[in-house]
């Protein structure tokens, strides 16, 4: 997973489909990121913040009881242990440093489950930047506590009442804000999506997950790589970061989407939010609304590099249902004492289902546990009380 082709292309996907007003800002960002990424001082500062503030490196945990339960050797890359509770911090610290480097003073962000919003608000507080987070109204209701957390961190949360009132509408609104404020504002996009350079930049900022995990797995496995590497996919940032560490190994790469928002499987090529990718849409090109219990995966598209990895076959994309996800959530809690976020519970749900089917017993499996489940406890409680079904 190297540089995209000119214009930000990953095969036929990617590109930069934004209004003219935003084109110069995307070009400026591309130049600023390339410059920063080649600058050892920038890399060193980012590494130090992620270490001393973020708690990196995160461990790879071998799950003995879960392994016994499932019949495979289960390893978890513990992004739930990063400060603020998810892998999202890796990306936002990089973008906040870049914002400062570009001389801008404000961040806007979209958020679904609230994890990227909380991470952005956290980085904004750390670096003294203003912060506005757009969140679908439906998600503000599902993730009330995260709204309050963002406000405690000094961010302004603006509920979005347009459309499906979820993540895709929050992205629209963040883009609209950015068009009007681009002279002093950076759009801190939370996933490997959007116009070039975002998909590439966010993957590079997240590759620390995969790079660390590969070394840690080799230490654990006498120099070998896992047989299967699994991560959940909404836009796909934790999966992209994870896959970046393993793309040149023999490991099978599997991205798991919510069954109600599986753009890699059910989507067709289209253009949304500045990128050409696989999208859930109707026959004339109206975007459809994704639906799952996990607000962070309620996105009708997928990052363009994932669409390209799916096309080439280097990674496979699978689905997990809400019910399977709730089971996996409880399974990890009971066997390992870890509450996963509902998003990575999709990755666990897939492996729980596929052992002895798509995945041979005795395989070694690495799952990226992209975030912790505290934010989801109230929702899981309600779902279980309602008879385990989806909302």
């Amino acid at each position, binding site marked *: 997973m190297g540089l995209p082709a000119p214009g930000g292309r990953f095969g036929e996907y990617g590109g930069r489909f934004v209004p003219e007003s935003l084109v110069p800002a995307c070009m400026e960002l591309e130049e600023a990121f390339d410059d920063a990424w080649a600058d050892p001082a920038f890399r060193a500062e980012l590494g130090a913040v992620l270490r001393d503030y973020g708690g990196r490196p995160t461990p790879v945990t071998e799950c003995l009881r879960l392994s016994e339960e499932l019949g495979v050797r289960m390893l978890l890359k513990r992004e739930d242990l990063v400060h603020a509770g998810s892998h999202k911090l890796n990306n936002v610290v990089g973008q906040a440093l870049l914002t400062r480097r570009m001389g801008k003073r404000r961040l806007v962000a979209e958020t679904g489950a609230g994890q990227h919003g909380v991470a952005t608000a956290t980085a904004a507080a750390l670096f003294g930047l203003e912060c506005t987070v757009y969140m679908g109204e439906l998600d503000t209701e599902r993730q009330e506590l995260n709204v309050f957390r963002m406000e405690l961190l000094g961010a302004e949360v603006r509920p979005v009442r*347009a459309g499906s009132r979820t993540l895709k509408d929050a992205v629209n609104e963040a883009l609209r804000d950015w068009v009007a404020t681009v*002279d002093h504002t950076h759009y801190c996009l939370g996933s490997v999506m959007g116009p070039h350079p975002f998909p590439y930049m966010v993957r590079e900022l997240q590759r620390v997950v995969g790079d660390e995990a590969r070394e840690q797995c080799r230490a654990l496995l006498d120099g070998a790589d896992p047989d299967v590497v699994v991560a959940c996919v909404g836009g796909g940032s934790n999966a992209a970061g994870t896959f970046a560490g393993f793309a040149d190994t023999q490991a099978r790469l599997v991205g798991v989407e919510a069954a109600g928002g599986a753009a890699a499987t059910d989507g067709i090529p289209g253009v949304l939010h500045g990128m050409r990718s696989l999208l859930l849409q109707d026959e*004339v090109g109206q975007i459809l609304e994704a639906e799952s219990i996990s607000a962070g995966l309620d996105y009708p598209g997928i990052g363009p590099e994932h669409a390209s990895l799916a096309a080439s076959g280097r990674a496979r994309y699978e689905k997990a249902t809400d019910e399977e996800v709730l089971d996996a959530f409880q399974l990890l809690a009971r066997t390992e004492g870890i509450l996963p976020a509902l998003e990575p519970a999709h990755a666990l749900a897939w492996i729980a289902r596929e052992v002895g089917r798509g995945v041979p017993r005795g395989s070694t499996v690495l799952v990226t546990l992209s975030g912790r489940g505290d934010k989801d406890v109230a929702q899981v409680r309600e779902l279980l009380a309602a008879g385990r079904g989806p909302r």
Partner: protein
Amino acid sequence: MIALEPWLRARRGEGRKLLVPYVMGGMSEDWVESLQAVAAAGADAIEVGIPFSDPMMDGPVIQRAGVHALDRGATPARVVDDVASAGLEVPVAVMTYYNIVFRTGHRRMARSLRAAGIGAAIVPDLPLEELDGWAAEADAAEVATVLLVAPSTPEPRVADICARSRGFVYAVARMGVTGERESVGSETADVVRRVRRVTDAPVCVGVGVSTPAQARAVCEVADGVVVGSALVRRLLEGGGPDAASEFVGQLREALDAG
């Protein structure tokens, strides 16, 4: 089909300021009558929106009109058919987002516009770098692709955009999305001046131009104005063809008096 650019150049040559109102296709039962009323009240060309689920460049008013249109079952084909049947005596440019064009197919879209007598298209999320596939088919079908120049567009790029724009050059009045504003942006005159330096094509200003007085002020530097949200809001409020006619008439009067 009326070719947009020669038509606008001829009118400009007569000393007339160009008025380009915007109506969202399919937004109400009587939207075609509103279109006819807009033409009769003095529009020089009309921009017709083809609704898209995720209009990134649009503010709340146009968004709402798009939702109404989609709820009423508007599709790209139906909007195009309705325009064809409206019997307008001024040129039409459709305005939509690229996914609609992409899913319809470049060639099919260009030919269907041409067949409906629609001579121009505006696709705001298709910037210069991504333009070639569509522009080749649009040029072949003699459908003019109108490009946008923004306040943030740097100098050499302004020239590249203007060289590729057909019909007119759409000068974006301010950084932001569509919607009514108290005043026209201070960047407006500068954008128009920078466009004029590299082209003699008609220059129309849009995004935020809301009142007859603003339209007149803009036309002191520009050749014309695009007025969207202010008209669409009146239609959303149920004003229908009468309100459209009255408002466009006021805009016309202001431009002619200027």
